């Protein structure tokens, strides 16, 4: 049965950690038995989880020490509350001190948990600072996005702070979810029920094509692990000094002018010169990566 694909999209946070880490190497901090549940959910009479929807701990990946946080998208949409956020922040602070080979953030979150919205918003800001402090201490942080909630809201920002962003096509990355935009701005702005459009605007292939995702893999936890191992040996570094950030600023401005009216990923495929823009959604990640590589080789 080992040859069977393990759908990362469907796997629980714990199953993802198990699939990414070397067998038996994971040690959890603040494990469920400690019952660090959310007092705020309880006060609102909502169900709580023993791990508050995030698993944090240490492990090895291909023998290299890492710290891992994995959000459980099925518990309240992976949303960040006080305890949940504090666990991720604490892990990043541990990283700055212990200097593992990397921190792996398995993001699966719609952003702030509304039941404790203020605590969640602040927690995300604390995660952002702790993440950049870990990077400043020389520890790279890799984000993995391929769950049903994607990486949205503040966790969409956190994801883009990471040195590497590894996504599957099923993964989505953005700030405001399509449902929110549709509710406020109307269905003409964003039809959230047009699922194919949603993925063309936020999905893994678009993010890879725009260079936001550094690696695109198929929806298989074993592929995510392979990407993690590859990133551990050779990874992109997030821009950090003045020169880097000036270059990043120029690149972001260039992107806006390169796609002046674009509102659909299809136009991005066309603008990039992919041979069959309409066929892109059905390409395997390998085939898509190959096409992108060929384009960049031509350019």
């Amino acid at each position, binding site marked *: 049965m080992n040859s069977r694909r393990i759908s990362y999209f*469907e796997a629980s946070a714990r199953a993802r950690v198990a699939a990414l880490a070397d067998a038996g190497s994971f040690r959890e901090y603040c494990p469920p038995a400690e019952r660090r549940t959310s007092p705020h959910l309880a006060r609102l009479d909502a169900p709580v989880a023993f791990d508050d929807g995030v698993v944090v701990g240490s492990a090895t990946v291909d023998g290299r020490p890492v710290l891992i946080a994995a959000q459980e998208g099925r518990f309240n949409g992976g949303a960040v509350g006080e305890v949940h956020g504090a666990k991720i922040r604490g892990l990043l602070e541990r990283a700055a001190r212990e200097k593992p080979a990397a921190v792996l953030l398995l993001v699966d979150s719609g952003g702030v948990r509304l039941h404790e919205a203020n605590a969640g918003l602040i927690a995300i800001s604390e995660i952002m600072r702790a993440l950049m402090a870990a990077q400043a201490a020389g520890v790279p942080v890799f984000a993995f996005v391929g769950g049903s909630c994607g990486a949205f809201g503040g966790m969409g920002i956190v994801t883009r702070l990471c040195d590497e962003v590894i996504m599957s*096509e*099923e993964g989505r990355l953005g700030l405001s979810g399509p449902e929110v935009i549709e509710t406020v701005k109307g269905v003409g702005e964003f039809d959230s*029920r*047009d*699922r*194919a459009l949603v*993925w063309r605007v936020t999905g893994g292939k678009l993010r890879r094509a725009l260079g936001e995702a550094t690696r695109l893999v198929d929806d298989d936890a074993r592929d995510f692990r392979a990407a993690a191992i590859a990133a551990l040996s050779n990874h992109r570094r997030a821009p950090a000094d003045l020169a880097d950030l000036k270059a990043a600023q120029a690149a972001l401005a260039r992107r806006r002018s390169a796609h002046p009216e674009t509102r659909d990923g299809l136009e991005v495929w066309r603008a990039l010169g992919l041979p069959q823009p309409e066929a892109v*959604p*059905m390409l395997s990640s390998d085939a898509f990566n190959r096409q992108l590589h060929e384009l960049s080789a031509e350019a």
Partner: protein
Amino acid sequence: MSASHQWNTLQQSRMRRLERAAALAQGKRVEAERIVALLEAIIEPGDRVCIEGNNQKQADFLARAMVQTDPARVRELHLVQSVLSLPEHVDIIERGQVSRIDFSFSGPQSGRLARLVESGRITIGAIHTYLELFGRYFVDLTPHVALVAAQKADRQGNLYTGPNTEDTPAIVEATAFKGGIVIAQVNEIVDTLPRVDIPADWVDFTVPAPTPHYVEPLFTRDPALITETQVLTAMIAIKGLYAEYGITRLNHGIGFDTAAIELLLPTYATELGLRGKICTHWALNPHPTLIPAIEAGFVQSVHSFGSEVGMEKYVAARPDIFFIGADGSMRSNRAFSQAAGHYACDLFIGSTLQIDLHGNSSTATRGRIAGFGGAPNMGADARGRRHASPAWLKAGREGRGDIPMPRGQKLVAQVVETFREHMEPAFVERLDAWDLAESAGMDLPPVMIYSEDLTHIITEEGIAHLVRCRSPEEREQAIRGVAGYTPVGMGRDKRAVENLRDRGIVQRPEDLGIDPRQATRDLLAARNVKDLVHASGGLYDPPKKFRNW
């Protein structure tokens, strides 16, 4: 005496109607903006009218036109159609233009319809099965006017209904040959049709609709939504029923439970060595979840009631499996497929909302008059059947016991979870159908499958071989035995159920060698719609709402 009798009043009525309409059409062709006037010219008070509403294809433009007719002229109608699914079907009743309806299924409009019945604004003749209603088209409910939908017409008025032929042949044949008028809305008028599904001399008028007729993707079940419990019940069904009886000819309902079975054929059933031994011949719409089983070589033939949105190219590319015309596209036919399901299949398996202690099942609940469509024909022993098959004979031996005249029996199974959402028990002492019949003044409680026809119940607790029960008491305990923690289940006589287990009448998963913990979604041959597309070699083109990539 006979000389004074008029034998052609229907024809004369038809001629009068056509004369009134002549100025509004150019030959058979009617422009969209004149359709309301045409309907007013043709329809007479008291007419039986069919506004073609199928499971999928809808004569939606003509339905909208009906709602714009003058209620003083178009009134006292008797609607005779299988499905009331568009809001306009009920709007026209609310406008007071309809006095009576005979139908089979009302799906999304069932709540509104129930309110109209309760307030006495409409009389329901009966809620039929499909075959029953089609039968009555040819006996006492022949439409005076049929408003149908086709994909294309040519200039002579021949129609191409394409993959979604569904009810059209039955409606048009009854109407055209009994002095009625047939009006067809079409998506386009072309010079040459791919094939002729309805000949022009059965059609009086064609009208190009401003927008293509609506088709609902009713049979698409996203594998991503199949639960572990449904995988478990599917394993029980395959091992405890399909393999046990060697079922090759069958029909499936449209629920997730049966979609799970379809998706376990290439995996679990193959591992059990069942390829070629079960599930080879189907009366079934082209379910996308059947693609992996077809690709795995499980399936030899599928005849369809209708089609399914997005399956056109796939179906056309598998002519050995589906019924494909000389033009290369599928032809469906609800009447024939229903007859096939009733007479030529050994098993019907579907789902229900409620089952009582006798095994009567119903999807009717308070405040909704939905009807059952085809399930009662599929889910009934065909008394007229005269050909044998091993599955049919085995069920007959078990069900009829030691009677001198050998006869088979159809296998009819219901697969349910003991609790539905919101912890509503699927097993009840008394069906809601009784209350519904009372409040709606119906002669019969709306039962989908009667106790005497039901041979098996499958739940996550196991399978109850009702066909093997020797007394009503045994039957009741067998039902309680798979009813889990519902009040009905908790009320079981434990010893009696254990006795039934010993006799193989109730089988738990472990009795079948199934470990519930092995029932994971990993067993599904496709876990999402994208997997289905890949399995089809890119031929399946799913509707937008089912995409997540």
